[in-house]
């Protein structure tokens, strides 16, 4: 891997931490709706599948080492054993899928490609991880775990739209920054 990619991966991961400072919109239960998951989908769109994956893997790795980089200053190993552990572990895979889909949709406008990519990566795939984690930690069955987690899907759909708006705006301002184009 080139040094330039290595720097991009690291700085993008740092960016995700900074996005965690944007005040979260309070939601009904545990998982807050934050700009941070926005960053996960954006990682895929901006860096492409592989670098997106690596940058999220690096982010999650450093969180596990003990850095409070998740929104609200959360971090450490506790994150990986709680009921929402699946989501954190799914971040790299969600970024990969988002980037992969967005790359396949090059012909569509940036907005549409980013939106569809985010729905596939940031919702479909991420929830597979999230629901599996929830099921393993709480011992609920698949159906009930899915029902509980489904509460967050409307909020996340809003986020995919925002992701697409941000991707489009960045593409306008700096076309070279979007790797999936």
């Amino acid at each position, binding site marked *: 891997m080139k040094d330039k990619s290595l720097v991009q991966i690291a700085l993008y*991961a740092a960016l995700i931490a900074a*996005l965690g*400072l*944007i005040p979260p919109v309070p939601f009904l239960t*545990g998982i807050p709706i934050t700009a941070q998951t926005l960053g996960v989908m954006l990682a895929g769109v901006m860096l492409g599948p592989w670098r997106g994956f690596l940058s999220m893997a690096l982010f999650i790795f*450093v969180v596990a080492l003990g850095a409070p980089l998740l929104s609200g200053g959360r971090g450490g190993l506790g994150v990986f054993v709680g009921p929402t552990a699946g989501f954190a572990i799914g971040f790299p895979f969600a970024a990969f899928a988002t980037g992969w889909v967005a790359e396949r949709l090059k012909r569509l406008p940036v907005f549409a490609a980013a939106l569809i990519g985010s729905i596939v990566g940031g919702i479909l795939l991420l929830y597979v991880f999230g629901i599996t984690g929830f099921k393993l930690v709480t011992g*609920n069955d698949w159906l009930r775990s899915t029902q509980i987690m489904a509460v967050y899907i409307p909020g996340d759909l809003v986020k995919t739209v925002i992701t697409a708006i*941000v991707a489009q705006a960045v593409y306008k301002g700096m076309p070279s*920054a979007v790797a999936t184009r």
Partner: protein
Amino acid sequence: MISLYVQRQTWLHRMPAGAKLIGLAAVSVALYPVTTAWWLLPVLIAVAGAYASLGPGGLARLWIVKPLVPMFVLIVGLQWWTQSLNAALVLLQRMLIVIWLANLVTLTTRMEAMMEAVMPLLTPLKWFRVDPARVAFAVALLVRFVPVLMAVMLNLLEAWKARGGGRQVWRLAIPMMINAIRMSDHVSEALAARGGVHSR
């Protein structure tokens, strides 16, 4: 760099990081077969005792689970309703024990020590021709640039408030992203000028 580590000297701090990680894994696995709520209570009390042994403010650190409270209420309520009170209490205690223990490892282990402890786990990366030294470099770079980008973010938030604020604060993600991309270009140029990342 900001870290959850608590600078003190306790018996937990002196324990090697690898031993703590293995202990954590062992406890999490050992708890699974337990199905009687009463048996878990002593373990829970022992974990709280370990927090108390961190010295002043130690017990207050148990509040780390505060953001999870609404979710706990939901999960426990469901479990009670669909199964039994015993099952609900087993689940709640097991979650608390594992989360608190994991956090205890984080509180008492320096990030460098943790990194060293997990380095052997990174050796398989060599099969994919990834040099663990480059992973270490990426971690260092991330740790260095978190405060830098956080400062940029706080500046943008201040400016946003000064302009009257509003609900669409997520719009700040756009300038943030462009800033980070520019910065990444500068850093890689600076790195190239210094001969690149040193591999072994």
